[in-house]
């Protein structure tokens, strides 16, 4: 059964804060939900499906439903795939709505890593004590892996196998900065050059400071509704016409290849369901925790051949109005916002803005009727979840 056109994104709201010392994370979830509901013209009592991930405090969805006063929830999903969770939730919401499990699905994200609360969950047991945590923990968590150096490992191997250069990666940051200059909320608004990126200090070889995304507090939310509810609302209808998800990990140690991501599976699934091809996409939100993240996913989604990503992103090809594939026109995680170290929801939000024609006029893609939002959460260097959605303006 195809889920094409079975649900619509009718509300989308990005929290304007980038530094929130005076609010709780739960509060940011609430405010984001309220903003998205207001955008859709709906209320908390209209919500009957709730989606959240690991950033939700307390007992996940159960704590948040009670805290926010959601009284009519009949579908609860707290699937956790790191930063891509909320893109994956869009697909899950479509499934739930098509199955009649809910009519109005609320997805929220929020957190405050700038307040010293951005630590990763999990970890080893105390010395001498048997652990019952993640089975890989003892064999991986002890080596000082972080997002920086595990993505660095991917970039190092991609450069080795395909001749990708730091200058080519830098073009991704350059493109994001060209977009961020028009976003009044962007954490970094200054336009940067390839030289600025490659001359910034090395963080985890071969990734420089400016190859990395920003660290920001904040949040965002999305509202997905049934076609009936969508038609009752006075907002542009953004139809979810395809979705796909896929996990990828080290695979038992056999055949490790860090030069590709789970997008090689999630992308084709979404394109097949939508009945479109990468060449049809007018705008793409591509998860950008690091520049290498963008490059690998662009290849894996089929916007160019494997190994050609470096050439594809160079010379402004990702800049709206300049290149062939305008991406992350809000400035993305690289310049605008990466709330609580999870960039999935802002990827969908900017795609919705583009399809509504509500992006900043300097970055709005002309006749933008078909867009893609894609993300990977976790680590490309170890295990991650990939999620792709394809959206169409009705």
């Amino acid at each position, binding site marked *: 059964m195809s889920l094409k056109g079975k649900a619509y994104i009718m509300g989308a709201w990005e929290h304007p804060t980038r530094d929130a010392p005076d609010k709780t994370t739960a509060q940011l979830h609430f405010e984001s939900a309220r903003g998205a509901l207001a955008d859709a013209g709906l209320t908390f009592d209209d919500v009957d499906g709730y989606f959240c991930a690991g950033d939700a405090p307390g007992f996940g969805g159960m704590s948040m439903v009670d805290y926010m006063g959601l009284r009519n929830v009949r579908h609860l999903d707290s699937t956790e795939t790191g930063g891509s969770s909320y893109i994956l939730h869009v697909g899950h919401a479509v499934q739930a709505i098509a199955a009649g499990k809910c009519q109005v699905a609320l997805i929220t994200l929020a957190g405050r890593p700038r307040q010293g609360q951005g630590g990763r969950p999990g*970890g*080893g*047991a*105390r*010395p*001498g004590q*048997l*652990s*019952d*945590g*993640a*089975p*890989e*923990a*003892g*064999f*991986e*968590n*002890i*080596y*000082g*892996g*972080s997002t*920086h*150096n*595990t993505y*660095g*490992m*991917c*970039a*190092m*191997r991609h450069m*080795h196998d395909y001749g990708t250069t730091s200058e080519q990666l830098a073009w991704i940051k350059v493109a994001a900065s060209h977009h961020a200059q028009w976003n009044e909320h962007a954490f970094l608004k200054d336009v940067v050059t390839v030289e600025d990126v490659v001359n910034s*200090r*090395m*963080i*985890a*070889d*071969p*990734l420089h400071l400016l190859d990395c995304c920003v660290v920001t507090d904040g949040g965002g939310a999305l509202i997905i509704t049934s076609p009936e509810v969508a038609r009752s609302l006075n907002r542009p209808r953004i139809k979810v016409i395809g979705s796909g998800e896929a996990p990828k990990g*080290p*695979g*038992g*140690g*056999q055949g*490790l290849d*860090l030069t590709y991501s789970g997008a090689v599976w999630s992308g084709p699934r979404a394109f097949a369901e939508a009945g479109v091809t990468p060449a049809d996409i007018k705008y793409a939100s591509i998860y950008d925790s690091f520049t290498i993240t963008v490059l690998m996913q662009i290849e894996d989604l089929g916007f160019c051949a494997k190994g050609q990503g470096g050439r594809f992103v160079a010379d402004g090809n990702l800049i709206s109005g300049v290149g062939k594939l305008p991406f992350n026109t809000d400035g993305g995680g690289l310049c605008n916002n990466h709330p609580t170290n999870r960039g999935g929801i802002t990827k969908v939000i900017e795609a919705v803005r583009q399809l509504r024609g509500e992006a900043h006029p300097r970055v709005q893609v002309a006749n933008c009727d078909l867009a893609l939002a894609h993300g990977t959460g976790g680590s490309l260097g*170890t295990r991650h979840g990939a999620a792709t959605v394809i959206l169409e303006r009705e």
Partner: protein
Amino acid sequence: MSEAEAKPAGRVIPAPAVTVESQPFWDAAAEGRFLIKRCTACGKAHWYPRAFCPFCASDETVWEESPGEGEIYTFSIMRRSPTGPYVIGYVTLDEGLAVLTNFVDCDPDSLRIGQRVKVRFQPTDGGPPAPVFCPA
């Protein structure tokens, strides 16, 4: 000598989380032996060690001592560290397994993909010693 090598090798490896599945690995590590798991049903080795085979789902897995030799698949030098730079990476063992580890006893800036490396064990913070790899 590079700046990276000149700094003290200050990063202490935390105690590994030991589980009932992995206890034999860490007991052997304390004796300086490096074990991998192999499935006797399908013949494939796997990493990290599990009680079952992730390729054929058989329970017939056995511990096998490995020489712990292989080549660097990839690596990254972490420059942002209060105890000085350290290197994380994957080694591809001669048995074909990709193992996440630290590369030590080397000038990080001299490391190359494809370089031969060999296991040694390094003390951890209150736990069993952990396998790390150094140039062969």
